[in-house]
Every structure is written in structure tokens, then in C-alpha cells.
């Protein structure tokens, strides 16, 4: 099984986990990306929405599970063929929620370009934006090393 281990800086990443955990609660109740359900039958729409929410919650659980005892002792997280897919999706969900909750003020063009002066941001927004970038890096790492595992699974 293909597996990659990444050594992270504990002092940098540990504080970001508070942000992710805070948002994880909300992601158990609300979809990260607002979706239109069009003309679906209400009962079918509710089931559809419920299934999306359950999947989202499970994915975010997998992301949080990365930061276990090994992470807090060694600073190491591991990605493999089993967790790559849910984690890359969970990162997308948390990033969407970060934008919704903390980063609206930056504007979409700035967010898309990533050209932000961290020193100009308030503490909560700076922390949220750092978390946003961290999760993008996790996604890039997984896509770079495990994309074939995800596509073929």
C-alpha cells in the first residue's frame, strides 16, 4: 500500500486544529457548499441532503483522526490509499467553511489569488487563513502522491 508520512511543525499546526475542530461541529449540521436541489421531490431531497451531510461528517472525522497521539508526540501524519480520499474531501469542506465563517472579508479574488499580507489581518482571520493554506497544502500533497489511488479506487 502506498503511504506517505509528513512531518509537521507542532507549534505551527497544533493551534490550527482548534479552528478545524470548531468548524467540524458545524459541518455535522450544515453542508460546506450550498447546493441547489432544484425540482426534486421533498422527501427525496431530504434523503439526498441527509446522505451528503452524513458523508461530510464521516470525512471530517477522518481528517481529525489524522491528528492522533503520534502527531502530538512525533509531529507526523500519514496518508495512504484508505484515508487519502476522505481527507482530501474533508479539506475541501473545511476550506469552504473557513471562507464562509472567517474569510468573507478578504474577497473572493484575494482568496483565489492567495495574495494576502498576513500581518494586516486580525488574529482570528490570520489563524483561519493560515489554516486555509495548510489544508490546501495537505490537498496538494495527497493529489501529488496519491491521485492514482483515489482515481482508481
Amino acid at each position, binding site marked *: 500500500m502506498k503511504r506517505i508520512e509528513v512531518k509537521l511543525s507542532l507549534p505551527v499546526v497544533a493551534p490550527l486544529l482548534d479552528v478545524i475542530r470548531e468548524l467540524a461541529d458545524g459541518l455535522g449540521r450544515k453542508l460546506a*457548499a450550498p447546493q441547489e436541489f432544484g425540482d426534486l421531490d421533498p422527501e427525496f431531497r431530504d434523503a439526498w441532503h441527509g446522505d*451528503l451531510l452524513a458523508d461530510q461528517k464521516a470525512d471530517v472525522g477522518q481528517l481529525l483522526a489524522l491528528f492522533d497521539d503520534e502527531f502530538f508526540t512525533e509531529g507526523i501524519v500519514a496518508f495512504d490509499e484508505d484515508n487519502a480520499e476522505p481527507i482530501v474531501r474533508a479539506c475541501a*469542506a473545511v476550506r469552504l467553511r473557513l471562507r464562509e465563517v472567517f474569510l468573507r472579508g478578504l474577497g473572493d479574488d484575494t482568496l483565489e489569488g492567495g495574495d494576502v499580507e498576513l500581518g494586516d489581518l486580525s488574529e482570528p482571520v490570520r489563524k483561519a487563513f493560515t489554516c486555509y493554506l495548510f489544508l*490546501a497544502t495537505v490537498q496538494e500533497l495527497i*493529489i501529488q502522491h496519491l*491521485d492514482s489511488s483515489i*482515481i482508481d479506487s
Partner: protein
Amino acid sequence: MIRAGPKTSPASETLAHTELELSGRWRVVVLNDPVNLMSYVMLVFKKIFGFNETTARRHMLQVHEQGRSVVWTGLREKAEAYVFTLQQWHLTAVLESDETH
């Protein structure tokens, strides 16, 4: 199950319309968002639709530059399944009737 009613009733017209909608062709459309990475969107397209690198990139760039891309067209049931899967991956996806057919 759809029940047949009198030919002239509004209910039967609605049912006929619904049958047509269900049997017609539908588009799966992905809309732009400022959050998801280009590489992530390409990965999702390759995974869900089996696109090769070139096709995935073309659709991703359409989404990015034009705000939307029609990624699949066909029968409603399958289109719904694709929209659901795209939404599982947190892309903004909608179902549209393909009025060109």
C-alpha cells in the same frame, strides 16, 4: 407510480410533462467557486467521469474562466447520481434540462 387521469385534466398534463422531463436529456453543470483548488477539481473530474488529463483540464478551465461547465449530458437518473457525487466532493453542481434535444 404515475396514474393515468382524464386526458383534459391539468393533472394529466402535469404528469405527461413530468414524464417528458424524466425521459428527456439533462445536463450536469459544475459552477465556479473561489475555494477549491484547480488540481482538486481536475482530480474530481477524472475520478467521477473518467476524464483524461486534457479533458479534465478543459472542463476545469471552463469552470474557472466562464463560471460553469457542462460535464455530462444524458438521462435524468444518471445525471442525478453524478450531481450527488459531485456534491459529495463539495463542488457546486446543478441539474439542468437540456432543451436543445
